[in-house]
C-alpha cells in the first residue's frame, strides 16, 4: 500500500516537470515580447500608418478618445486645464515632448486645433501615436 502511494507520488512529480518547463517558457516569452506600460484610461485605437517611427526619448502622453475626451496623467482634463498643465511642464523643461494618442475616428480638425494650441504655448516637439500597419 505504502509502495503504491510512493510511486504514484513520484509519477505526479515527474508529470509536473514538463508543465513547469512550459510555464517557464511562456513566462520568458511574455517578459521578452510584451511591453509593460502604464495603464491606459481611455479606449483609444490609434490610426494605422506605415511611416511611423519607433519612439525616441521620454514624452508626456495625452490621450484623446473618439468623442474628444482628453486624459493627461490618468486624469480627465479640458483644453484649459491641459494648457495650464503643459505650460507648467514647459516652464520646468522647455524641451518637453508631447505625444498625442488620438483615436482614429476622432474629428481631425479637433486634433489639429489642439496641436496648433500646443504649438502656440511653445511645445517644440509634438508627435502623434500610430499603430504600425503591416
Amino acid at each position: 500500500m505504502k509502495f503504491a502511494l510512493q510511486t504514484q507520488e513520484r509519477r505526479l512529480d515527474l508529470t509536473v516537470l514538463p508543465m513547469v518547463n512550459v510555464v517557464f517558457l511562456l513566462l520568458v516569452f511574455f517578459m521578452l515580447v510584451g511591453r509593460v506600460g502604464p495603464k491606459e484610461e481611455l479606449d483609444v485605437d490609434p490610426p494605422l500608418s506605415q511611416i511611423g517611427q519607433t519612439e525616441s526619448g521620454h514624452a508626456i502622453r495625452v490621450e484623446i478618445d473618439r468623442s474628444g475626451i482628453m486624459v493627461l496623467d490618468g486624469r480627465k482634463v479640458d483644453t484649459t486645464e491641459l494648457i495650464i498643465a503643459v505650460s507648467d511642464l514647459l516652464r520646468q523643461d522647455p524641451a518637453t515632448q508631447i505625444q498625442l494618442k488620438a483615436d482614429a475616428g476622432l474629428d481631425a480638425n479637433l486634433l489639429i486645433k489642439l496641436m496648433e494650441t500646443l504649438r502656440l504655448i511653445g511645445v517644440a516637439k509634438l508627435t502623434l501615436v500610430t499603430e504600425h500597419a503591416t
Partner: protein
Amino acid sequence: MSLHSYGQLKDREIEEAARKRRSLVILTPLVDIVFILLIFFMLASSFSDHRVIGFLTPAGAKQAIGSEQPSAVLVRVDADGSLDMSGQPMSAVRIAQEVARRSLSDDTLGYLVQPNRGVSVQQVIDVVDLLKSSGARNVSLTSRSGS
C-alpha cells in the same frame, strides 16, 4: 531472501531516494511564484506595435530650417475621401506622382494637409502616409480656416 524482506528493502530505497530528491529542490513554491509572474506579465504586457509620427512645430521648425518659411503646397481632404492639391481635384495616385516629381527637383518643398469638416484622424494620417511615402519630407497639418 524472502519476498517480504525484499519488499521492505525496496521500500526503504525508494523512500530514501524520494527524500534525497525532495531535499535537493523544493519545486512547489518556485512553481507558485513562476505562475504568479506569468499571470502578471500576461495581463500587464501589451503587444500592440505603436509608432510615432513627428510633426515639426514652429518652435522646433525654426531651429531646423532657419527663419525663412519654405513654400508649401496645400492638400485638402474631404470627408468622402476625395483629395485636392493646390485647389485642383486629384486622385491619390495622381498626387503621389506629382509629389514624387516635385520632390526630385526640390525636396524642401512643404506640404500642408487640411482636412475638411467631418474628416477623421485616420483619413488625414492616410494622406500624410501617401505624401511621405511618395517622397515628401516636410508634411504638416493645418486646420480648416474659419470653422
